[in-house]
């Protein structure tokens, strides 16, 4: 009989656990909304007397005092507490992001290139009927993608895997626009995420080719690509030094089709992530910091 009682208790506990967690989350959300209310009080002193009466004892959280100019005086709104389920899911993503041994779609290098059909044929291979050509390009795109792995391995990756590829025919230029996605294992220090309440991955997106004043030669050669990959790695190292962690989550290299004999310049966009307090203010500061690093590293 005791065995049955224990079993029923355990089953009941299993059923009750989500409700307990969700109730706890609900309580956290209540506290958070109170914090937001307090922020509003700080920003609107004329209403503070009225709103302050809504605060409740111990759970009231001290609001940072407003300071400085108008922009800085905006009180940092804390992030809304995550539900236990979302938290659980995020742990897996976070773990993969900082893993040196697991490939992840969260760390990708994408290459967008325009290739004429002849470029996908092997030496001496006869071109098939036009009906088959989109299929050929689609089927050979992974091989094209893999050819870029050498550049990743020479700069920022210890291993490289073709993640996904796709292609579209552009009749205007008679070329195939090929999108290649490579996931990689980092060959640079990621740092350690300093776990704390309200912290999560925050992102800064920058254009590594913006602001170079056209100093870089147009084209899409391997040396230029390696150069940009190296710069991204350099910038990430500086982010890690300042924030404790950094991941190059996305590096997108693209080039339009050459216009006649004239090559078009390459565009390189990068997304850097770090683990920090996930607030609008922190994200804005992080974006400004990374943009500054891009200019420094031109």
């Amino acid at each position, binding site marked *: 009989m005791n065995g049955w009682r224990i079993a029923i208790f355990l*089953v009941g506990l*299993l059923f009750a656990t989500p409700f307990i967690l969700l109730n706890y989350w609900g309580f956290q959300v209540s506290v958070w909304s109170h914090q937001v209310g307090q922020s509003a009080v700080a920003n609107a002193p004329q209403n503070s007397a009225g709103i302050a009466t809504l605060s409740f004892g111990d759970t009231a959280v001290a609001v940072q005092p407003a300071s400085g100019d108008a922009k800085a005086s905006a009180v940092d709104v804390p992030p809304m507490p995550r539900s236990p389920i979302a938290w659980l899911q995020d742990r897996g993503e976070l773990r993969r992001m900082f893993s040196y041994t*697991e490939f992840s779609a969260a760390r990708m290098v994408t290459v967008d290139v325009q290739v004429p059909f002849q470029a996908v044929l092997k030496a001496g291979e006869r071109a098939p009927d036009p009906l088959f050509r989109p299929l050929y390009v*689609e*089927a050979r795109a992974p091989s094209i993608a893999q050819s870029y792995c*050498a550049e990743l391995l020479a700069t920022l990756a210890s291993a*490289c895997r073709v993640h996904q590829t796709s292609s579209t025919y552009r009749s205007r230029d008679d070329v195939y626009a090929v999108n290649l996605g490579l996931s990689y294992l980092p060959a640079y220090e990621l740092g350690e995420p300093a776990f704390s309440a309200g912290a999560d991955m925050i992102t800064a997106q920058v254009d590594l080719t913006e602001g170079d004043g056209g100093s870089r030669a147009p084209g899409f050669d391997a040396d230029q690509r390696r150069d940009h990959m190296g710069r991204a790695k350099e910038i990430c190292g500086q982010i890690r030094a300042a924030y404790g962690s950094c991941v190059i989550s996305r590096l997108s290299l693209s080039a339009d089709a050459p216009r006649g004999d004239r090559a078009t310049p390459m565009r390189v966009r990068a997304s850097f992530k770090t683990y920090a307090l996930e607030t609008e203010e922190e994200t804005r500061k992080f974006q400004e910091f990374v943009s500054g690093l891009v200019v420094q590293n031109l």
Partner: protein
Amino acid sequence: MRPHDGKADFQDRIRRIEEKAQARRAEAEEAGYVPRSSTGAARRRGIWLAILSVPVLGGLLTFGAVSAPEKFDLSFNIAADADTEDLPEVVKPASATPSGPGSALSALLGGVGAVPLSGHPAQASPKRESQTGRVWASPTVLNDSRAAVAISEIVEDYVAPGPADMLAEARLFDKSPVCWFKSPEPGQKVVSVNLEQALHPAPVTAFNTVEMVEAVTRTVERVTRKNGQETELHLAAGDVRVVDVFVTDSSAPIYLVLQSLAANIIWNIHTAGDATVAHAALVGPGVSGIIVDSDQTKVEAMVISDFVGSHRFGADDTIRDCMIRPWRKPRPEWQAWQKAERGNQLMTNQIESYAKGYAAYDAWFTRVFGTSAAAGTLSAQGASHVLVGPIPDTKLSYRPISGAEAQIVRTDHVILGDADTRRAEAQAQHLELLTRAAGGDIAMLRPAVQNRGDTQ
């Protein structure tokens, strides 16, 4: 006096109660009474299953958040992780052993004209009535009187088609490049058979190269665009059906117009002693075919998609040249008609669509054959057998499709054989194209992981 022992007394009472209960159960079972219904047991199992599924689901959710090394530390070892480097095979077709050299009748690459089939599903489990009319499933025979006629009243040795059937031979003929047929000659009687679906599979797989390229492209995209999670070899449908047509009308040489809106059909024509089929005009969505007794029967065929684009609501409303999609005339006994009368707007639209499509088709039909598509028409949503003329006095001898010689519209890939052979051959042809497209090695659809040490 025996000292009072409360515990022993209680256990004694429990024992007596249990003995009485057992005696009652034994009596009930002897009387054939089952105390617990099977429904109750199933319900209890269901409840337990639901209870146990909760921790299992929770476990799965948690497992995703545990790091890979920790997973292997757990007592249950789950080998596969999507992101590990130990990648599975790229494409795993079923054990496709290409069949003998005779099974691939033709592989005529290059002559591509048709667009893919419209994609209407073949009716697997026929029902008696449908939204768009009656389904005349075997053993009933679609006939002029609309009364129930059984196949056993027409033939004496009917054999239903099966997966082991094989055509003896197929002669390919070219489809019509123009959107008209030879006009009926004076004295010939035009009889129209119009089915949306056919119910029995024919031992033929036929598809054009465009369809094969689309299927192989689908296979490639599932590997390259979805991070290689799917490795199924997609095949062009190539589904062909068979319908028996028994011609007993001997009043005049018959000009048969055999039409299908959605199914590729091989029409298996039987003629009674003095009946003749002078001409057969086939209209279908893709591959059509015919089996006839006499070489005197002239056969022509048109593929709908050569002249009319894929169907969209309202696309066939306009009367115009070459509107050859064979819409059937709506009838009051259709379920859709009855529902429309009761105010169902969806069915009202469907009936209107059929009516407009039919009007446009009828205009083409009348211009080509000199008679309305409604005259002398045997029309149904689906059928296994069709009777043209009266029930014969003497039963016909049934000629099954297995072992017969068929005439089939020329298509890039026509495969004969039993079901397994055809599938294996179709797989081999698709795999060959896939390998060629991938540059000779399908493993390159998902290249191996490259490590820094590999290149240095």
